[in-house]
């Protein structure tokens, strides 16, 4: 397994206070990782650093063993795609027109999209299962449909690494499961995945690695079994897990084991 993305002792400050400290981890090609932590702990910041949009205050980021800051924006965009939480468009673009924007890093200023670009867009629409929506207006789609179109937009970049910022946010449980299935499908297609997640019960079985950001502490990582322990979660989220309906079972199981 080769390393796709590596962060080494990365710090980031936002408006004078430190939002990210000592983030050190490595994503291996083909892995599927979840990034968890409280609101405002720096998950989005970490994803933006991984996408090359933000430069860390200190520390090193390398993409495929090359320092991120030495790689051209366009080349990064051909390797990493970031699917944002929100996407609001001021005009009535169709789904296809939106997804075509994913080809930007491949298209020169004067040359229009070629047959290769059209094929990549078709494939991205196909992979995200939104081919049937291609002529719909993006702003008129439901939350679940929009989420899939945003992923198609990321896939049109033909990335090796797909970063997703809370992809299951605002989705009903049926759409959440569909989305997780889509992520697994993409991982099987050879795309490395890192998604920030709030729904910890979705993290448990579906991700191979968990990265945990806790306020004031270095980033910790491990398998879901290691990281989703009640003692760790209680500390990281400042919430006793047995107070949360979705974590009670886990908390009780753990208590039995300890005994």
């Amino acid at each position, binding site marked *: 397994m080769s390393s796709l993305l590596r962060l080494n002792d990365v710090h980031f400050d936002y408006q004078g206070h430190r939002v990210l400290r000592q983030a050190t981890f490595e994503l291996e090609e083909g892995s599927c990782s979840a990034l968890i932590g409280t609101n405002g702990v720096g998950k989005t910041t970490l994803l933006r650093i991984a996408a090359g949009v933000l430069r860390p205050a200190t520390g090193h980021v390398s993409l495929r063993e090359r320092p991120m800051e030495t790689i051209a924006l366009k080349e990064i965009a051909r390797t990493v795609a970031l699917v944002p939480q929100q996407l609001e468009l001021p*005009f009535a673009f169709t789904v296809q027109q939106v997804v075509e924007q994913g080809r930007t890093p491949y298209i020169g*200023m004067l040359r229009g999209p070629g047959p290769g670009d059209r094929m990549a867009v078709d494939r991205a629409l196909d992979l995200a299962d939104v081919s049937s929506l291609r002529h719909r207006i993006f702003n008129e789609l439901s939350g679940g449909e929009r989420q899939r179109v945003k992923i198609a937009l990321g896939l049109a970049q033909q990335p090796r690494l797909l970063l997703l910022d809370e992809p299951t946010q605002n989705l009903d449980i049926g759409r959440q499961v569909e989305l997780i299935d889509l992520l697994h499908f993409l991982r099987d297609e050879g795309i490395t995945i890192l998604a920030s997640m709030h729904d910890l019960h979705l993290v448990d079985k579906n991700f191979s690695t968990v990265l945990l950001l806790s306020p004031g502490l270095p980033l910790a990582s491990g398998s879901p079994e290691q990281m989703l322990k009640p003692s760790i979660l209680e500390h990281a989220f400042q919430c006793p897990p047995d107070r949360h309906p979705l974590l009670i079972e886990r908390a009780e199981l753990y208590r039995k084991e300890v005994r």
Partner: protein
Amino acid sequence: MAIEIATVATTHAPGVERTRRRTVPPLVLNLLLIAGLGLMTLISLGIGAVHISPRAIFAALFWHRPLSETERLILFHLRLPRVLASGVVGSALALSGLLFQGLFRNPIADPYVIGSSGGATLGASLGITFFSQWSVFGFSATALLAFAGSAATMALVYGLARSAGKTNVVTLLLAGFAISTMFTNSSYFFELFDKTGTGNRVLASWLHGVIGIPAWPELAVGAALLVLATVAALPLMRTLNTLVLGDEYAQQLGIRVELARVAIILIGSLLTAVAVSLGGVIFFAGLIVPHVARLMMGPDHVRLLPVTALTGAIFLMLADTLARTIFAPSELPVGVLMAFVGGPFFLYLLRNMKRSYSV
């Protein structure tokens, strides 16, 4: 709290099988618009205090059939320069509206709302009052100062609206509007400085948005700059499509956002300056035309560029012809006419806008 005005309402509930609204194929639409522009030119040339039939104009243009001396004088020295000037002004305003709306991701941006025309007006007023005889490389001082004023104002408004790497759209519009109003009205001060009184009259009619009868060299410079700006804008239209996703997303896709932004602002300011130096203060054309073009062609900026330019030319030719004929023999400044047509349209847009509030 940041308030973001996000979308012009399209339609309501997402139906199951809704497809894209039908748009005309781009080539057909452009050909139709070119034909329309030709027709509009003929009509505008013919209508006026002295009526000249389109047939007579055609005959004079293509078969060298002589017109009467009076007709010839009216046609080539009075009407043709004015009709062409209104076309150039219309195109320039519409294109700068398209560029600013795309760049600021906001459907109510236009040269007047954003402030670039206020700066151009101030610059041009300076030129008319103090430097009316000066020129540099064939560009009148008025035109140069209009461009400088326009670009400087854009930089100022943009700087005011930008904080922590983000552009607040509401601040941008409000700052633009305040500066635009301030600068446009400060132009009236120059009337005080004018000793002879001739600049005074030029300035006064110009501030009301009268497309005068430009000298041919002036018109040629304006038209050349319009063509230049359009050609320069062409490679940026794809970038505008990407910028619609947001500055940060565009950056993530490999676009050098700051560079693209500066280029678009410069071209938009140049277009505003062309329009202002030929036609004075004309409201709302830059706002309305891109919307009409979007209704016909969809939101893709690459396709919108020619459609917006042609529609803008037709639109202002029509407006100017109406302005000089509905109260004939008196003439209404086209700027005043546009204010009455454009105002209600602006309000309509405002009512139909979906607002999204974000904390």
